[in-house]
């Protein structure tokens, strides 16, 4: 039973990001993993080892695509070559949905390779939503937009980040990839209550959740994805599950990547945590 209209894949439990240092282990040992999230751009190539590995993974596992370069918030039009390659990959992986970030990152054809925050205005929301719709129509796959972590805010912003995310999602009629760690990081950097964020996004649009670790610096938090998930993020994840129900979750670990077993254990921990919290929610409701 789908938890909501944007989450028809409640049989997807906790997945793991497919990363190069783990290829050999995964292909040789074939560990039990519910699903893998791939970075689309790493496989939008014409041949060679990346596609060979992907095809081997696809033979045994479910794969969901996560992108880092659609830049829905950039003023630039989409790069047609990018979209064509992405569509080719969508057909190859048969990803049930595709996610990318609510951010900008390119200007006049020059790329920052970063996920940059946007001014939260209604005009920007309309522009962003139009691009999401255009991408979805071209790619023919449901899209979830992910909230990014940020370190700066614009004077030009008219609304909160969660209002902006909600506005974009409603206008684009798309799903949300709710990154709980990003909300926590941004809440500390911008002095807001992360639970206000969680409580006020349209829960019926949340199709996926991300959890990850971050790093603490003296004056700000940095979204580094190089640690296990920290306690405040686990607590927020529990609250998010209560709000959105059973939702596919991805454990991110992208830097200083440890052994596959260590990442896998963290994912199993997340799976157990999720099952317990969902069971507790059901009991309470009963």
């Amino acid at each position, binding site marked *: 039973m789908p938890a909501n209209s944007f989450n028809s894949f409640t049989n997807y439990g906790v997945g793991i990001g497919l990363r190069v240092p783990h290829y050999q282990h995964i292909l040789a040992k074939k560990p039990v993993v519910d699903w893998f999230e791939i970075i689309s751009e790493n496989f*939008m190539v*014409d041949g060679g080892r990346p596609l060979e590995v992907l095809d081997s993974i696809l033979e045994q596992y479910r794969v969901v695509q996560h992108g880092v370069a659609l830049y829905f918030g950039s003023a630039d039009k989409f790069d047609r070559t990018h979209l064509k390659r992405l569509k080719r990959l969508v057909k190859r992986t048969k990803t049930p949905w595709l996610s990318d970030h609510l951010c900008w990152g390119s200007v006049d*054809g020059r790329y920052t390779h970063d996920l940059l925050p946007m001014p939260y205005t209604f005009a920007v929301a309309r522009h962003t939503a139009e691009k999401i719709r255009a991408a979805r129509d071209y790619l023919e796959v449901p899209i979830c937009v992910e909230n990014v972590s940020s370190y700066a805010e614009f004077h030009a912003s008219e609304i909160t980040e969660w209002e902006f995310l909600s506005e974009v999602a409603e206008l684009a009629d798309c799903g949300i990839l709710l990154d709980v760690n990003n909300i926590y990081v941004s809440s500390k950097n911008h002095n807001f209550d992360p639970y206000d964020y969680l409580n006020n996004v349209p829960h019926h649009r949340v199709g996926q959740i991300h959890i990850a670790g971050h790093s603490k610096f003296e004056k700000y938090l940095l979204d580094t994805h190089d640690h296990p998930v920290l306690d405040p993020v686990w607590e927020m994840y529990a609250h998010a599950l209560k709000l959105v129900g059973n939702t596919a979750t991805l454990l991110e670990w992208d830097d200083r990547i440890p052994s596959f077993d260590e990442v896998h254990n963290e994912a199993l921990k997340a799976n157990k945590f999720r099952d317990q919290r969902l069971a507790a929610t059901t009991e309470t409701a009963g």
Partner: protein
Amino acid sequence: MAGILFRPLTPQWGMQERWTDGSRMDEVAAEFIKPNDRLSSFERLEIYNRQYWFRVLDCLWDDYPGLRATVGERKFMKLITVYLSRYPSDSYTLRDLGNRLEHFLREEPHWAAPREEAAIDMVRFEWAQVLAFDGPSKPPISPDDILDTPPSRLRLGLQPYLSLLDLDYAVDHFLIAVKKRESDVLRGETSNAVDSAPTARAHRKRIRPPKHEKVYLAVHRQNNMLYYKRLDPEAFVILKTLSRDATVEDACGDAVAASNRTDIDWPAQIKAWFDDWAVLGWFCRSL
């Protein structure tokens, strides 16, 4: 904001204090970025400025170890910083970040002085490896496909992932030595065994610069593993001529005519080369 991110950092890895028109960056930043109770507008923007440069510099550092070793680490950092300022990324993928390095080094060779020519050879070689790693392939031609076509009419295409390089420096041998040194260092760093820890020595061990030597190289892949193979000059001419859609007969004729070697059984040698290249899967249908 993008204009600010693309501006190089100061030598202390900070954001520049002045904008291009001479105005103070803290004032420029304050115009559009909010400060908070811990960070000024300048400091918040500086996080992004740093992240941009750390990301792109790290990428080229990892992808061009040969160029780094050819010019030296300090010069390499200067070179790639200027390169990225002139040619910011024009692709959605970091894979392509070095796609104009050769062009840049031809425009401004002094950044690689005194090894300008070796640096260009190395960049061509390292970019060819990028192409060989994940470039497209076409179905290889089987002997049956060409059995009935005489050499005077036979045209063979080459795999798109195959690069043919005529080089003036032995950058292939040099890169092997560089990678060996780096793996020795890595082994030392990851091992507690005293015997297998060549760290300090390996760090200090100097590698002779690329030797001045005419080298003909094919950079390719086999079973999705990256390889580079030295070619005889005549073999290089044949392949290069075939890549321009010439017939097999013309390509072989050009190669033999250009050769000054007289002690070769050319028909046997050419057959051996073609057999080898066919096994490697280099041939595909021509354009």
